[in-house]
């Protein structure tokens, strides 16, 4: 029971991070029908931007307030990561729009390799550590010498994610931009006929997805305290799995899928084998694709045309 509770907390934390990344996959897929394989690496780049920002703030500017550092880092990482993603879309995807369907996907794989290699060359291949930022924990319960704890950083991750999701939901459902985005997702030609600048809307989709991934990146950095140039791949594919599990194209699905993948992974590690946790996550991908390709909250597409 205590172990389960602890893993539940850990799983939800990890799941929040996956969910934030998964939104980027699912939004881009929704609007242009393309799996943005570079998204995982955009996430990794954001963690590095966060790392550099934290080091600059602490060593050069000598700041000590953890929350201020975290807040500034989040904003900086979101801004720069958005810029990176915007540029990628402009350079590597937009010119291929209207080309055959696989072209932008292959280009995305190229961007993925480019980003991880660029970071490897620019930052070095080794793990980049960060001094522990928020070490405190809350002991929730204690029995038979086993403590169930909720770390402050876990609390921060869940709270920031929840807050962000509310804001994001509002953006998509209630603002003209979100409406234009949903319109483009359903019928780009019609959206253009209503005066929507489709290219700009697609760019903004990439920017929003990247900003959420940047939050995930900073959270990841804070949680594990270490980042590596290859760290984009596995979390990236897991977030993609989350998006597929939730139903690719569905925003609530991406969040749900992220939480589920996070839970499955941590529970599997606790009860079966930590070495095989990735196998568990990716088996889900295979099973979902075979037996339930529309995912949990994916739309069945039965609308009248």
């Amino acid at each position, binding site marked *: 029971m205590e172990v389960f509770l602890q893993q539940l907390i850990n799983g939800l934390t990890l799941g929040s991070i996956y969910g934030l990344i998964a939104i980027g996959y699912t939004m881009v897929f929704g609007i242009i029908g393309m799996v943005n394989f570079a998204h995982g690496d955009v996430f990794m780049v954001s963690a590095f931007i966060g790392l550099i920002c934290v080091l600059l703030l602490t060593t050069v500017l000598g700041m000590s307030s953890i929350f201020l550092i975290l807040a500034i880092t989040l904003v900086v990482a979101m801004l720069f990561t958005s810029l990176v993603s915007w540029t990628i879309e402009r350079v590597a995807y937009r010119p291929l729009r209207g080309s055959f369907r696989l072209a932008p996907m292959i280009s995305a794989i190229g961007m993925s390799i480019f980003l991880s290699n660029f970071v490897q060359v620019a930052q070095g291949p080794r793990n980049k550590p960060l001094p522990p930022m928020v070490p405190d924990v809350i002991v929730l319960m204690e029995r038979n010498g086993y403590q169930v704890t909720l770390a402050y950083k876990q609390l921060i991750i869940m709270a920031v994610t929840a807050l962000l999701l509310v804001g994001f939901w509002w953006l998509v459902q209630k603002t003209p931009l979100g409406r234009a985005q949903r319109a483009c997702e*359903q019928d780009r030609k019609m959206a253009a006929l209503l005066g929507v600048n489709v290219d700009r809307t697609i760019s903004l989709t990439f920017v929003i997805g990247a900003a959420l991934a940047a939050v995930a990146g900073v959270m990841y950095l804070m949680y594990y305290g270490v980042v590596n140039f290859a760290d984009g791949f596995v979390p990236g594919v897991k977030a993609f799995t989350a998006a597929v599990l939730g139903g690719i194209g569905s925003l609530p699905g991406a969040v749900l899928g992220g939480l589920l993948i996070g839970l499955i992974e941590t529970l599997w590690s606790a009860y079966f084998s930590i070495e095989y946790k990735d196998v568990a996550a990716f088996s889900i991908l295979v099973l979902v694709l075979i037996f339930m390709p529309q995912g949990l909250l994916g739309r069945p597409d039965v609308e009248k045309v």
Partner: protein
Amino acid sequence: MSAPAETTEAPAPARASEPRGAPLLSVAGVKTYYGKIIALKGVDLEVNEGEIVTLIGANGAGKSTLMMTICGSPQAREGRIVFDGRDITRMATHDIMRLRIAQSPEGRRIFARMTVYENLQMGAAIDGNAHFDADLERMFELFPRLKERINQRGGTLSGGEQQMLAIARALMSRPRLLLLDEPSLGLAPLVVRQIFEVIRDLNASEGLTVFLVEQNAYHALKLAHRGYVLVNGLITLSGTGRELLERPEVKAAYLEGGR
């Protein structure tokens, strides 16, 4: 370049009472291709302010292609399209629409996963929903059914309701030129009459300029001030609605059983 109009006896008169300036929309020598296939072979036509102009033609004649070409999607490969004195041939679709051209396109293209309300909001997107509430009330007057369905998703509406929504959505942008692509397609005669009445009323009361594409030639020509006949990507006939209704070619090709 100019279309070899077989027979154009009457030089397309506008309504007698109105002074004629430059046309609101003029299409000259427009050729549109889909890849290597030519769909419009040099179309010329004009729509004057305050007119209802109908384009009739068989399936595959290029009617919808012409509608979409006016909106820059696809763009004309040759020729010139001028709206309100401005060359829009090479403009991006969203910029053309911002000049207040609105289209209710073929197949209606309602956003199926958005509510009726959101569909109408999209219609008013170009000016940031500035007159949204007033215009919404107006749409409810024109199409009371939409009011009942306001929170329903577009995909759950019947065909007739979707057509009303498509027209209302186009009107929400307060267009200077309304392009209607086959608004009668697949609808019950009663609904068709209702929709045509709305178009006539808007034209009469507000001077709305309408360019209408129809297969339902009889009703469309009765409604229109002027009409054109499109055959295989070329305009072959033009004249007032009444004149075209009397033409034997039109009668034979488009009116047999058309009423």
